[in-house]
């Protein structure tokens, strides 16, 4: 599996890049995920608004709702939930697509044309994920912060100035960078695991339709677990 990542990186930095496929995957991984991200981001923020207000007001410090929601989203929930959503949406589809190409010998056909399957199938996904994940996470964060304001500010009465002002005071650049690093590495994990599982359908999983379905399942489960484990390590490193 490590070798798979090394090869992917190798072909990522050695041109030519299959640009049309790259754009197609940006559209698929990025653009078509935005609705899901808007919804999950908004509701996560709103829940944080409620929960945060409830907890903070016990200590009489509901003025800090803004920083609390902001930090939770930017450092933790934004990258993680975005990555989990993209895993479910795009990771599974990538694993299934590559898996089907494997069992129907389309990958062999590519190789026999003297073309490199990594270049055609893996690298475009890889680059697209690296670009899209931080952007989707940013959308998630922004929508979430406004969702939190909708509840905390409009419904529960924290002022807009307090909410956003305190947030601006307490959220630092390094918090934002932490989120960016996390989302980048999650993007790598998703594509790495999904492409790997799809690519080796029939070798590490069964054959046929069942092989593809278990490759897909394994891709989603393994990506999700790796995301959360890696998140722990990154958090403890960047703490």
């Amino acid at each position, binding site marked *: 599996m490590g070798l798979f990542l090394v090869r992917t990186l190798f072909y990522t930095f050695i041109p030519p890049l299959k640009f049309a496929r790259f754009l197609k995957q940006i559209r698929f991984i990025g653009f078509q995920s935005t609705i899901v991200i808007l919804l999950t981001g908004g509701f996560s923020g709103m829940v944080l608004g409620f929960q945060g207000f409830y907890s903070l007001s016990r200590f009489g410090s509901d003025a800090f709702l803004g920083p609390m929601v902001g930090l939770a989203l930017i450092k933790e929930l934004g990258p993680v939930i975005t990555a989990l959503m993209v895993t479910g949406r795009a990771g599974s589809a990538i694993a299934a697509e590559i898996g*089907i190409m494997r069992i129907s*010998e*389309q990958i062999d*056909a590519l190789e*026999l044309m*003297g073309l490199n399957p990594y270049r055609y199938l893996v690298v475009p996904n890889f680059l697209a994920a690296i670009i899209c994940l931080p952007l989707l996470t940013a959308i998630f964060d922004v929508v979430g912060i406004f969702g939190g304001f909708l509840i905390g500010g409009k419904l529960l009465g924290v002022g807009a100035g307090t909410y956003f002002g305190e947030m601006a005071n307490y959220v630092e650049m390094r918090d934002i960078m932490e989120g960016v690093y996390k989302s980048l590495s999650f993007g790598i994990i998703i594509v790495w695991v999904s492409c790997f599982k799809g690519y080796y359908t029939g070798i590490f999983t069964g054959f046929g339709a069942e092989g593809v379905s278990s490759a897909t399942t394994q891709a989603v489960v393994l990506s999700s677990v790796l995301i959360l484990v890696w998140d722990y390590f990154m958090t403890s490193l960047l703490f």
Partner: protein
Amino acid sequence: MIEIEGLHKSFDGNEVLSGVSLAINKGEVVALIGGSGCGKSVLVKHVVGLMKPDRGRVIVDGREISTLNSRGLRELRARLGFLFQGGALFDSMTVFENVVFPLKEKTKLSDELIRTRAFKELELVGLSGSEHKYPSQISGGMVKRAALARALVMDPEIMVFDEPTTGLDPVIGLAILRLIDACHRRLSFTGLIVTHEIPKVFSIVDRVAMLHKGIIWAEGSPQEFVSSKDSVVREFVGEGTEGSFIR
């Protein structure tokens, strides 16, 4: 041109090939026949380097395939055409896109030239009019023919066909065999045809090899096969040629 020496291959302890040896000279077309599941597809996949032998060697053009690095393999494959038994068309592309794909990726021809070449090839296999359908929208026989067009469009020096006519009706099947023959005359490729099309295929090949029990059981000219005394060969070839029908 193609030399197979003592090829062994087993899957999970089940030996499929147990010492296959076969040589195909340059410009020659050989038919590979044998019972279903006897390992014909496995054998031809070794020839193009999609599978690695457990033991034995495959030498194409003086170079042993399993020792080639990725560049060597790429150079070899640039001169080689392979028709998959299942077609292996890219299902996210239309038939036309499938046929132009190798030309677009591997040659520097102009788009105009590529289009005309692809249309000509599609016409030859009788697929004009279905260019813009996707593989899932056409019949199995049409998939086969589209895959054949894709394999032939690069004018390969070595062609391997894995059951080019299986699943086609007799008329189109015969037309495809004639097409392969015509291409051979034009390009004089070295060919290996896996087929069950006995005796039809005998008229377009130079030699026939029969795979049975993991080895090349019999090998010779089509005439030798038709008049063979070997009981296994007779059972396989005899029926069609002598007209012994089951009543």
